[in-house]
């Protein structure tokens, strides 16, 4: 048996660093005290039981889910077309176009948020979930494009030609070849863009008006922590659910590539 190398020890130490803060959220969601701080008073499931009564919290959750879903669809749809254009066709100004689409990644959030607020008010759009969705689509687009671009990269152009050659038209080819082959990329894009939107705070803080998304609601509770244990309970559930989703997605991805039925 070999002594574990320094690198392995470092890898496990780093994992502890990554998980340490995250572990405290579920921990405090079982704490019976209302103040989220040490020492822990006692253990309770009350915060989970009372989740259903928190109307503003539930409303914020719905707001976030709605914004996330619409954002994911818009960004993935636009990203699908753009990624296909970037991978399959060559045209003048292509590099500039690809760079432009990536721009939202490298503009500081506060600047995007403040300038969009000014723009939407100028256009007569009052802050609401609509403006948040428009902003989130902007932020999520580079993620969608880069994920879908790598999906199209792996996609041999002669597959589509083979389908035309075997008698299928443009739409039938898209439905029977293009879509199934890039489907994992589309699913990944929807998941990631949804998460980007679901977790985004600064833009929503500026653009949501009186329709808070979940992060905006959490922000108000972090500073005035009356409802914070409820938030931690919800956060723990969401963390568990998304971890499960991720594991499941990986599992299916692996099954689909090695299936031998």
């Amino acid at each position, binding site marked *: 048996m070999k002594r574990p190398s320094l690198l392995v020890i470092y890898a496990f130490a780093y994992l502890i660093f990554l998980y340490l803060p995250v572990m405290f959220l579920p921990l405090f969601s079982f704490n019976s005290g209302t103040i989220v701080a040490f020492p822990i008073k006692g253990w309770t499931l009350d915060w989970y039981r009372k989740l259903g009564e928190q109307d503003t919290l539930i409303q914020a959750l719905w707001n976030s889910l709605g914004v996330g879903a619409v954002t994911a669809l818009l960004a993935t749809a636009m990203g699908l077309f753009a990624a296909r254009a970037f991978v399959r066709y060559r045209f003048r100004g292509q590099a500039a176009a690809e760079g432009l689409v990536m721009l939202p990644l490298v503009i500081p959030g506060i600047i995007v948020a403040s300038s969009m607020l000014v723009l939407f008010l100028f256009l007569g759009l009052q802050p609401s979930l609509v403006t948040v969705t428009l902003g989130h689509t902007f932020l999520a687009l580079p993620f969608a494009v880069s994920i879908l671009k790598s999906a199209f990269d792996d996609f*041999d152009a*002669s*597959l589509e*030609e*083979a*389908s*035309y*050659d*075997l*008698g*299928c*038209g443009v739409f039938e080819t898209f439905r*029977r*070849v293009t879509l*199934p*082959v890039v*489907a994992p990329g589309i699913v990944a894009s929807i998941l990631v863009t949804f998460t980007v939107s679901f977790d985004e705070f600064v833009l929503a803080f500026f653009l949501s008006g009186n329709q808070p998304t979940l992060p905006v609601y959490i922000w108000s509770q972090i500073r005035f922590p009356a409802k914070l244990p409820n938030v931690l309970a919800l956060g723990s559930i969401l963390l568990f659910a998304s971890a499960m989703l991720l594991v499941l997605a990986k599992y299916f991805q692996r099954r689909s*590539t*090695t*299936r*031998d*039925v």
Partner: protein
Amino acid sequence: MTEKNIIELKGVEKRYGSFLAASGIDLDLRQGEFFSLLGPSGCGKTTVLRMIAGFQEPTQGAILIDGQDMAGVPANNRPTNMVFQSYAIFPHLNVANNVAYGLRGRVPKAEIDARVTEALEMVELGGLHQRGANELSGGQRQRVALARALIMRPKVLLLDEPLSALDKKLREQMQFEMRNLQQSLGITFVMVTHDQYEAMTMSDRIGVMFDGRLEQVDTPATLYARPCNRAVASFIGEMNILPATVLEETGGMLSIEAAGFGRMRIERNVNATDRARDIIVGIRPEQLEIKADKPADYPATLKGKISNVAFYGENIHYHVAVENIDKPIAVSVPNYFHTVDFNRGDAVWLGLQVASVIDLGKERKSSQREKT
């Protein structure tokens, strides 16, 4: 094989900007023949194939399949099917669904099942219906691609470098299998390849392309014996090229003065249409005799010195340096007695029968591809 033309190309040209990928292509393909388009990479052979398939439209000229003008007919409505160089096996479908792809929704289910089984048996993949696309070997992928195209019962099967992804042994085996398949089905095959041996062993006729032009269309034997110019002669097999001067032309015969060998009368090559007083002639390496002493029974002889020896197994190649000739002359000798008779530096004599000197006409200088 009948004399009916299944494909006719009339003055076909494909131009990308100022670049001529193919120009002046006139070609008639006969029903039931195995035809190969042969040429180095970038010569335009794949462009011609893709124009027949309908993936590219000619910028000039017409393509007729079974008498019908294909202008404006998209790939999915043409009576051709293609085996792609990468095979293009759909990764999300199993073997049976790949093969059935083009029939789905057009033919009743029971008939699809029967035809898939039949097609798989034809390419010797019987029973592999459920195998996933990612679990196939190179040779199996090639067979699936073949079955998927043939199940459509095309009037013409197009093959784009179908064997280039396979290793040497498998490639040789598939050459015979595909040739047998083609002959038993009686379908016209059009294959693109850069491999002269592949083209020669499989085809009824071969079209040789250089720089976007179809240089010569002939049977393998004629191409080898009567190539139309230096490019074709050198691309198909090996050829010693010598300059020569025409002294006199009488009734299909040429009196020439060839470098080194001197005066001789050779047959005028009808395929070599570029004529001039200064011509080039070609001699195949296996047509030359190599001896230690001056051979008495050869009309043309030459003295030289061995500059290189290469042992090929079934034959031996000698390079012989000759005074007043720039390039060493290559000589190929069958390895009958398992001995290498000469070594580097040996003085030798070359002997030649006049009938094996091929008239190649005037030497063409540069390519005329870039036009505006």
